[in-house]
């Protein structure tokens, strides 16, 4: 896709003339070492907060690790149990289900919002800022407010449904209803953010393309489909990948939505328990840290697989 921009063979500079010994040693050292010094902060921080926890989690996942600490090496036993654990697969299903239910409408809606914001509108700046507001709201606040909106007895949604003659829904009791409620929270929070990314991409599309299309008699919708969407493909790929990663880590919204003292189970029958909730439950509630670590690594693996699938799809369709 991208061409190699650096000239290769020609780049080799001629050997510098050798000045006095001391200076050359210092400058040679400087030349060799300082680049590493410059990039060191990132690697340092990554090593402490990224790489080490990652590897340590892998190490813990190979042990029978509970409250008392390391209870002995057990190899891949935790992973073997995990593959036969219906609660884990249930959580994976829930996570993927909510991922699709949240991401697809969210990105489509974001595209439409971005297209609208790209028009000549009154108070355009205000509107553009407005769509960003949900993202600065705290997740917990969103969770609490939406939990009340989707409440069984006194919720606003049930109140509205009642007006049109629908019997009240116990939103937490079923998969479909709880998924809708949680996806709504995610959508409300992220649609504006994604539409701003799309908007930025749309503004870099040359005007001439639209002018030419108008001359050819293409309608607005046709222009949107044939010019806008293909031209902002990189932005779309970016948002899809970011939403996938965020969706795989969905935690706070369902946790707050599920109430009471055992909310981490995500409903009486684990209707809306995500994998990260299951990881937390296993590690910190059931005190099985080894098993929790194994789940954490499975989440990592799942995200990797999804990212690769995303990548393959976008690469194939861009050919």
């Amino acid at each position, binding site marked *: 896709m991208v061409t190699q921009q650096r000239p290769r063979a020609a780049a080799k500079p001629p050997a510098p003339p050798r000045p006095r010994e001391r200076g050359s040693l210092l400058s040679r050292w400087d030349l060799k070492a300082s680049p590493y010094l410059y990039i060191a902060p990132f690697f340092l921080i990554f090593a*402490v907060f990224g790489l080490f926890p990652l590897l340590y989690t892998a190490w813990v996942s190979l042990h029978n690790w509970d409250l008392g600490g390391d209870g002995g090496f057990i190899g891949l036993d935790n992973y073997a149990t995990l593959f036969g654990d219906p609660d884990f697969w249930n959580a994976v299903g829930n996570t993927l289900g909510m991922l699709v239910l949240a991401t697809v409408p969210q990105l489509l809606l974001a595209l439409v919002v971005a297209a609208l914001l790209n028009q000549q509108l009154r108070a355009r700046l205000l509107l553009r800022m407005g769509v960003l507001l949900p993202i600065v709201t705290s997740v917990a606040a969103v969770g609490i407010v939406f939990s009340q909106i989707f409440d069984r007895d006194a919720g606003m949604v049930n109140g509205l449904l009642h007006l049109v003659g629908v019997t009240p829904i116990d939103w937490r009791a079923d998969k479909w209803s709880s998924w809708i409620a949680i996806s709504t929270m995610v959508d409300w929070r992220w649609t504006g953010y994604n539409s701003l990314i799309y908007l930025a991409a749309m503004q870099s599309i040359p005007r001439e393309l639209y002018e030419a299309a108008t001359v050819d008699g293409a309608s607005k919708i046709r222009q949107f489909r044939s010019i806008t969407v293909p031209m902002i493909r990189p932005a779309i790929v970016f948002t899809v990948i970011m939403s996938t990663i965020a969706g795989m880590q969905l935690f706070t919204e369902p946790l707050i939505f599920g109430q009471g003292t055992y909310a981490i189970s995500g409903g009486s029958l684990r209707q809306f328990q995500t994998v990260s909730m299951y990881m*937390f439950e296993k590690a910190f509630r059931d005190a099985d840290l080894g098993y929790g670590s194994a789940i954490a690594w499975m989440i990592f693996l799942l995200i990797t697989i999804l990212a690769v699938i995303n990548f393959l799809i976008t690469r194939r369709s861009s050919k």
Partner: protein
Amino acid sequence: MPARLRRTLLATAMAATLAAAAACGGASDDQQSASGPVTLVVKTFSQFGYDALYKQYEASHPGVTIKEENIGKLGDYTPKLQQWMTAGSGAGDVVALEEGIISQYIAKPDKFVNLLAKGADSLKPDYLDWKWNQALTSDGKTLIGLGTDIGAQGMCYRKDLFQKAGLPVDRDQVGALWPTWDAYLATGKRFLTANTGAKFYDSSSGMYQNILMQQGDHTYYDKANTFVADSNPAVRSAYDQAVGMIQAGLSANLDQYSPQWNAGFKKGTFATIACPSWMLATIQKQAGPENADKWDVAKVPGNGAVRGGSFLGVPKQSKHQDQAVELVKFLTSAKGQIGAFGAKGNFPSSPQAIDDPVVQGLTNAYFGNAPVGKIFGASAKAVKPVYLGPANVAIGDRFTNALLAVEQGKLQPAEAWAKAIDEARRLVK
């Protein structure tokens, strides 16, 4: 390429070394000498009502400063405590251990200072036997905590709703309505026929736990820590009784501690709630002053019951173990327990404190001047000790979720039971 790889590795190694050095630098902290002034950090959840006691202790022990770090919800405190204990730092000098937590840690006593080695053995008569034994390892050699309060149970009820339903409102007559849980169920059915618009109780999980704890002896584990939930008739009968109440339509189906449950006190969506002593403060706060003359408290169905209750322990990671143990002894003494009871209504676990006129004579103005000291005291002393196994809380959660699924109409009682047993068995492996 290999050269570049080597250099990358070198850089990574360098970074790692630096990181390790930085980590070491952070580890050294203000180690205080044992004789100098010390600050004791006490970790608690919810409300222990110790503020006045800390002041007293600081006054009588110059050089000791006490700092309490509180986390509001037990559910948030438990994982934090676990992280501190696993990481080996952060737990402070004294930690509050709820009875569900202590039943987990009793299997790993080496994380805590053995209080028997610090002269606690002479204090045994100061605590109810079963309370003492909950913090004692099965070999009887290690004691990891001293009892603070116990959740002695009563049954709180709304007088206005009872009146509407044509039931008596006087607390003795109300208590006489339900000598047993079957009688409670019958009363509930009577209540529903009056169509007050309210349900009889808040949530089946509370009732189930209450009934289960009254059966005595052991629950999901026998005393050898063998999983017996599926064969223990006590568990099955508590479950069946709870199901019976659900099927009679008594439950308002509100998760305890959810916003709707909180609102239910104000709106009067349920007429009774099994209330441990520590819940009175919650009810008063949620129902608010406008419902001041509506709530009262009667005895609980069946004979005596407790739910919840805590201990104080000293983690081994504390740098001031001796001073911390002294503080624990002071706070959990009969005098300390009476102080906490006066401050926040935490019911004492020391028989001397229970019999103390201050506790016996206590009434609660919000609950129509109910003699809560007498009601809860009688309940606490009638309790049959129950042995809880290591994963007791986690297994209990599976059963209450099963009951919730029955309440929601998602599973038949028999299916829900099978599911709970299956999940619990996978949990204990």
